[in-house]
């Protein structure tokens, strides 16, 4: 184990590490003990409060319908945002200033605004200008806000993916006499897609996480919104409800994240691509990506 920060450890360093580990374990155990006792004081660890989740009754009534709504909104948003993002990303690379500049302005505008603001706007706009029933409005609003915001993020991902390809690719394509749109369609996009896939899957995690905003603020009946009625019905088991809901989110998103990194590793070793993979975080300013950051805003 050697890293940039420290060398392989000798006997003294090993002894010190054991001491640190012991101290950390004591601190962590103290924290855990405090959490458990305070939960116990409020009677949140009683079996009745956790039973519904083990016996499956809470699942069919509350969790499953909520999760279905979460997945529905996320999938819809992804399916619509991806082509939109591709169009805008390619438009930002256009040779014509009259296409490039408006596309850039639109993308930057929607990236600068919180997704909740877009959702609040969408709710009001739907109630004012359309006749969508008030039951469906939250779903439409959440989905619209997600599409507007994530299209612009995906546009940046597409742009970064295309720019990450070696310059020789398009130069060679031009040299054999392909037209501009052929260069884009046959040469750049197919290679960029493989480079972008991990970043796109990571963006799905962001979308899934953002659906919860609609649940908390816009009465969209998704997974998080099921906590309220659930904890009311099963006798104030707030902690248990939150724990189970958080675990579902973790399982869902962690599998997506793991899939993205598996994909990335596979693509890096792959023969079909240039081997360049856009880091999932190559595009700044998204909800979830904190690392990387090839492009500043």
């Amino acid at each position, binding site marked *: *184990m*050697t*890293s*940039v*920060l*420290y*060398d392989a450890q000798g006997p003294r360093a090993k002894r010190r*590490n054991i001491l*640190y*580990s012991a101290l*950390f374990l004591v601190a962590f155990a103290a924290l855990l003990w405090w959490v458990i006792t*305070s*939960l116990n004081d*409020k009677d*949140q660890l009683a079996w009745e409060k956790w039973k519904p989740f083990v016996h499956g009754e809470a699942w069919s009534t509350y969790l499953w319908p909520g999760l279905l709504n979460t997945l529905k909104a996320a999938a819809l948003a992804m399916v619509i945002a991806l082509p939109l993002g591709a169009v805008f990303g390619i438009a930002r690379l256009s040779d014509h200033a009259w296409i490039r500049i408006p596309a850039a302005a639109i993308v930057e*505008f929607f990236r*600068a*605004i*919180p*997704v*909740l*603001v877009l959702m*609040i*706007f969408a709710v*009001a*706009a739907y109630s*004012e200008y359309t006749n969508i029933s008030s039951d469906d409005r939250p779903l439409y609003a959440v989905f619209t806000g997600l599409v507007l915001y994530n299209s612009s993020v995906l546009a940046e991902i597409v742009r970064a993916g295309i720019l990450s390809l070696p310059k020789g690719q398009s130069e060679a394509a031009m040299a054999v006499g392909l037209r501009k749109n052929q260069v884009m369609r046959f040469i750049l996009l197919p290679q960029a897609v493989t480079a972008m896939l991990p970043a796109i899957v990571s963006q799905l995690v962001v979308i*899934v*996480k*953002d*659906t*919860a*905003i609609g*649940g*908390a*603020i816009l009465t969209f009946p998704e997974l*998080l919104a099921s*906590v309220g009625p659930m904890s009311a019905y099963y006798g104030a088991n*707030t*902690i248990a409800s*939150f724990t189970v*809901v*958080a675990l579902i*989110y973790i399982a869902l*998103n*962690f599998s997506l*994240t793991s899939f993205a990194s598996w994909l990335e590793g596979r693509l890096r070793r792959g023969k079909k691509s240039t081997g360049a993979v856009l880091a999932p*975080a190559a595009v*700044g*300013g*998204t*909800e*979830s*990506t*904190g*690392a*990387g*950051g090839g492009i*500043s*805003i």
Partner: protein
Amino acid sequence: MFDFLQGYDLLGAFWMTVKLTVLSAVGSLIWGTVLAAMRVGPVPLMRGFGTAYVNIVRNIPLTVIILFTSLGLNQTLGVSLGADKFETVNFRLAVLGLIAYTSAFVCEALRSGINTVPVGQAEAARAIGLNFTQVLTLIVLPQAFRSVVGPLTNVLIALTKNTTVAAAIGVAEAATLMKSMIENEAQLIAISAVFAFGFMCLTLPTGLLLGWVGKKVAVKR
């Protein structure tokens, strides 16, 4: 044109957004640095804890965390963070939630910065006889900090936008005001434009300025 703004504390709402952002930014920088130190340190147990924390927190929606601070910590367990007024309690809870969430991303940004320093740099430093402290303070960390400005800027901008989620527990910030204004005034487009402009004033200059700084200080490899 903008006379519907009369009677609303627009600046106050955005000031609340700024307060949430600044306090959470400072808090998550501290806790995120501690987490990053754990994740890159030599103690396996701390590494495991840091990794677990980041992976768990990153995959939970911020909304779940913020709502939990209010419904779970405050109303069920009676945590009030030393405040007695309803508004102050919720404000502090929102900051706590934002810190807990954003720290995971700060940690990852710092770690990616440390990982950009080639191992050869440290090996060369050890080869000329520098000790551990010197390697860290003279060679590794200066390079890491310089490459971390860009990613941290992205985290800060995401945090600015994420403060709107505090509306879920009734903190009187910009998104809360926007919602109530749209309900009371028949000026949807104008109101949305005002709030969109407000957030752009917060995020775009930050992004441009720090992005420029990041480009300027980054180590060219």
